[in-house]
């Protein structure tokens, strides 16, 4: 044996040993999931950024690099107006949603309004339903000629002309505002419920009246929650496509999202200009979400001390019936009226604004739902099948990812965890339509384009953070030692995950799954950019019907979607409980 070979074999076994100790189940899964999350989140954003500097020449054949698209944002005939309209809609609906959300949360959490515990679930229903469907319903209620409310105003009260015209930018503000009010509600109600009553009592003892106490103590304490909710509503409204597409774009009020849509799939498609608009919208929303996450969300807990308080319940006296009426009115205009209207319209062969009981038929449901029949409308029936596939498959895959990502963030201390934590917040900052533009320009030349896979990829990328939050909340409450003791008992990382971690997280996993199921089932603004013939989703089916067919058919499919969503909401409430959504 020569003296030289010995160190070399030692050296070799050293590296073999190192490699072996690195290739653990935990490390392999961690690396794979990190790469997937990294690629899924970063790739579309980088491609979007790069594409925004590609300028299409006037003939549409070739591209050059430059800032031309950004110049166009200012010089275009429509885009600057669309930008202003987006700001008006977002500001208006933020104000409306905040006023509604805060007042309803206060009534339900802190007053003796009758039946408040029974009313709360119904106050939250719009959160789960599709605002696009809301817009369709309100179109049928408030359209000047055929809108039910206008027809009734004329027939019953002899009103001249139209009571209202919903097909305006203010109609968009109205529908968006009432549908996003529950978002503000959820951000505020938690801190109202958990507030230390002595904070208010001590203000009352100094001689401050009720109104004064509310204005100077209660409201400032829940301010971070209100601001968080308001910012989220602003960002979500700015990224909302369905409502302006239905109510304002056809009548001359374009928004950034409707413009992005027409640049992405319209006749004058210019993906690069679309990417530029998406970039500018994305920069605004990311900036606002960053402010919310960095400065406002962390403060919301400092106002709430401890737990187990019974908050002061305010005796409203006779005014409690006013609060009750106010609460019922919200449920009436946000839930009952739209759904009733959809049912009525969907039962008529054609809709003229008149209820004709003898003409009523289920034919619209047959044509939009019975996919096995020859005369069914393909776009609608495809949508049902595809959306169910996407909702079941997508939320399952997303929850698996969310589980691994949460596990890594909370249970491993290794390299890259902070990056992963960051990556799982980033998608929240981008409206679906922006992310979808990024996915479109990234994958348009790959085989997954025009398949369900591209939709699933975009859905999961955009929404898995919601699932991740559901799991993380529970994981933070569970001691790490429960996992560690399983490893010490001799179980591998995977066995521990399967037998200990997942069973303990089951409620969070299931609640997150249903939440994603609901979100995926009604998704529109990603789907509208990425669908193609054959891969229509439920909401795209509704879009198709409202664009190319008639209102009764649209209403029928809308109702079908709404019924499935209502069932899912019921299951969600049973599983997740009352506090699951509150921030």
């Amino acid at each position, binding site marked *: 044996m020569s003296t030289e070979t010995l160190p070399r074999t030692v050296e070799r*076994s*050293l*590296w*073999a*040993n*190192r*490699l*072996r*100790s690195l290739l*653990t189940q935990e490390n392999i899964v961690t690396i794979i999931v990190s790469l997937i999350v990294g690629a899924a989140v970063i790739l579309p954003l980088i491609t979007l950024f790069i594409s925004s500097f590609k300028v299409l020449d006037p003939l549409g054949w070739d591209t050059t690099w430059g800032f031309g698209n950004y110049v166009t944002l200012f010089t275009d005939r429509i885009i600057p107006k669309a930008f202003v309209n987006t700001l008006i809609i977002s500001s208006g609906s933020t104000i409306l949603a905040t006023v509604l959300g805060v007042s309803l949360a206060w009534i339900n959490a802190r007053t003796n309004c009758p039946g408040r515990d029974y009313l709360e679930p119904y106050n939250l229903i719009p959160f789960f339903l599709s605002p696009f469907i809301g817009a369709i319903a309100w179109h049928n209620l408030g359209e000047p000629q055929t809108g039910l409310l206008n027809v009734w105003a004329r027939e019953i009260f002899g009103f001249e002309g139209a009571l209202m015209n919903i097909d305006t930018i203010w109609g968009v503000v109205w529908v968006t505002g009432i549908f996003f009010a529950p978002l503000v509600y959820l951000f505020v109600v938690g801190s109202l419920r958990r507030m230390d009553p002595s904070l208010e009592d001590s203000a009352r003892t100094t001689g401050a009246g009720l109104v004064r106490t509310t204005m100077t103590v209660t409201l400032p304490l829940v301010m971070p929650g209100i601001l968080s909710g308001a910012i989220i509503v602003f960002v979500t409204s700015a990224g909302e496509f369905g409502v302006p597409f239905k109510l304002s774009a056809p009548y001359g009020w374009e928004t950034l999202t409707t413009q992005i849509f027409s640049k992405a799939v319209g006749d004058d498609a210019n993906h690069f200009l679309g990417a530029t608009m998406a970039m500018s919208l994305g920069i605004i929303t990311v900036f606002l979400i960053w402010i919310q996450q960095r400065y406002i969300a962390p403060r919301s807990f400092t106002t709430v001390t401890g737990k187990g308080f019974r908050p002061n319940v305010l005796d409203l006296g006779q005014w409690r019936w006013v609060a009750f009426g106010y609460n019922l009115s919200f449920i009436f205009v946000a839930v009952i009226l739209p759904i009733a209207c959809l049912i009525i319209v969907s039962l008529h062969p054609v809709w003229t604004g008149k209820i004709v009981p003898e003409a009523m038929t289920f034919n619209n449901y047959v044509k939009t739902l019975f996919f096995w029949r020859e005369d069914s409308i393909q776009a609608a029936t495809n949508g049902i099948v595809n959306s169910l596939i996407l909702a079941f498959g997508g939320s399952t895959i997303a929850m698996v990812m969310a589980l691994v990502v949460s596990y890594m963030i909370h249970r491993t*201390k290794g390299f890259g965890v902070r990056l992963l934590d960051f990556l799982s917040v980033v998608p929240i900052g981008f409206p679906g339509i922006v992310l979808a533009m990024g996915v479109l320009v990234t994958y348009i030349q790959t085989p997954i384009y025009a398949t369900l896979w591209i939709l699933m990829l975009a859905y999961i990328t955009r929404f898995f953070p919601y699932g991740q939050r559901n799991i993380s909340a529970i994981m933070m409450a569970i*001691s790490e*030692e*429960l996992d*560690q*003791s*399983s*490893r*010490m*008992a*001799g*179980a*591998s*990382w995977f*066995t521990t995950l399967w*037998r*200990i971690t997942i*069973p*303990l997280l089951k409620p969070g996993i299931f609640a997150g799954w249903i939440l994603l199921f609901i979100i995926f089932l009604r998704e529109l603004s990603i789907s509208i950019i990425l669908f193609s013939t054959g891969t229509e989703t439920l909401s795209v089916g509704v879009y198709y019907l409202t664009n190319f067919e008639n209102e009764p058919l649209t209403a029928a499919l809308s109702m079908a979607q709404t019924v499935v969503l209502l069932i899912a909401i019921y299951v969600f409430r049973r599983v997740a409980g009352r506090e699951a959504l509150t921030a």
Partner: protein
Amino acid sequence: MDSETQSGTYLEVQNLVKWFGDDPAVDNISFGIPKGAFLTLLGPSGCGKTTTLMSIAGLHSIDSGRIRVGDVVYTSPKEGLFLPPEKRDIGMVFQSYAIWPHMTVTQNVAYPLEIRKVPQSEIDDRVADVLELVGLTDMAEKMATQLSGGQQQRASLARAIVAQPRLLLFDEPLSNLDLKLREQMRVELKRIQNEVGITSIYVTHDQSEALVMSDEIIVMSKGHIEQRGGPLEIYSRPVNEYVSNFIGVANLIKGRVTQVTEPGRGTVQITDHGKDIQVACNLGPGISEGSDAVLSVRPENVHAERENGDGASLEGEVLQAIFLGSHVDCRVQWGDFEWKVIAHPRAHLKAGEKVYLRLDPEHTLAVQP
């Protein structure tokens, strides 16, 4: 080659180093223990005791050093070796007990055996045996969440020993129990460990727990080992001010060694209001003539008398004398220093009176500052 019988050490930790960011949590410590021994790592929070335990468990990696048990190398970064925790064959009792709430007591305890693919009939027998050993036979089918803190503690211990692992690790297991239960569980834990005879490492910040349970104690601070020894040795012959302060109660007075009369004996000069006093005492390790030293005297070794006897007495004034039945807990002002003294009730000490303190050279120890 059987290193176990060669060196007598079963668990061996060599030059363990673990950094957390820029701070060394454990800074180059080494120790070994024979098979069946009960070793306690004692120190305040942040001293590196839990980090050492986690390194042995494999719940985190180490930066350098080597840990082996018997012939199995657990971890050795230099050789590129890291045995994952589940392959180390260790039983561990956690601070929070970590009893899985979605399983019954039996399911919890059977888990390590199921993982080791032990036949079901044998699992049943061994689980029943170990539940009897810890006194939980009646609770076998209860859900873990229905147990009290002390019962969860026992279930956790049962789960740790059921597979008869090579090593048993305890991470402050009693710190969540109330005082009475804690004192009861100390004795119980020690009895069960004796019975199963598994080599154990116990981490705690509670010195009385360490004194009661351990064969050997390692006192740690700031990632270093300060002293290692049996409970009596640690208590009666601490090597430095830190250890004598941490273990039990001690009067600690700064001084200087003036004379070494014979190996291990000498005099230390202490100062009271400019007046130098020579005190005969034992010298700890590392103490030589002319070096700074700290006199360490346990309160029970200070003799307080109302009359001045012979030799070097310290004259002071009783600040406080609390009668506790078997003894009197006193505070005596001597210059700027306040002595803690345990006196016999017959000494009749009263607050405000003059008292003479006499130090027995046998029980007065000069240690390193």
